[in-house]
């Protein structure tokens, strides 16, 4: 599909960011749910790393890991982005992370909407 601006770099990055932010929300949800689980250590997604790797073009999103040889790969393409930290869950830290994540998600959605508005205005010639 060659709709130019609908598939350009910035648009693709925004779309990917949305996916990652949703995934991060899940990671955080898992951390908070296991707040009192003994021996549970928190997991996280390092966004600086992820974005840098993406812009450099060498993002690893491997779904296959060494846990289960009989395991069917492809169930979760984003798995390679989640890191195990080995730290205990700190509730306050986690809640702050969640706020930041939500803000980033909202911001990305907003930017996406703006881009779409521009495209729409171009198509409709400002008659709406």
């Amino acid at each position, binding site marked *: 599909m060659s709709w*130019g601006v609908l*598939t*350009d770099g910035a648009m693709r990055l925004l779309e990917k960011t949305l996916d990652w932010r*949703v995934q991060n929300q899940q990671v955080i949800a898992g951390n908070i749910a296991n707040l009192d689980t003994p021996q549970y250590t928190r997991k996280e997604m390092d966004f600086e790393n992820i974005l840098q790797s993406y812009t450099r073009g060498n993002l690893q999103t491997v779904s296959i890991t060494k846990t289960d040889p009989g395991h069917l790969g492809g169930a979760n393409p984003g798995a390679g982005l989640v890191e195990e930290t080995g730290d205990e869950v700190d509730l306050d830290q986690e809640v702050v992370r969640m706020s930041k994540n939500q803000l980033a998600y909202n911001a990305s959605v907003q930017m996406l909407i703006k881009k779409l508005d521009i495209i729409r205005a171009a198509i409709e*010639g400002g008659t709406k």
Partner: protein
Amino acid sequence: MKVMPLSPELISPQGAQSLEKPPGSRQEFENLLGKMMNDVNQLQHDSDQKVSGSLLGQEEMHTAMLSLEKANLGFKLLLQVRNKMVEAYQELARMQI
């Protein structure tokens, strides 16, 4: 939160083969139109898929909404192209020979 600077290769439309070059002959124009209709059709199919996927919990909300909007915009564009064509034809038809 650190704001990532956008590098040039990120925002330049690499996928922007948009409208290649203005069509020179009628044949090319027909193909272009046909291609546009196929693309729009594709967008509609894609969005149907994504929407039902999101209802089943397999697709994200934003993915489905975005695909709907893209299909919508694609269709609007096609509509405008059609309108312009009709206008152009009418303009021609009005010309005194």
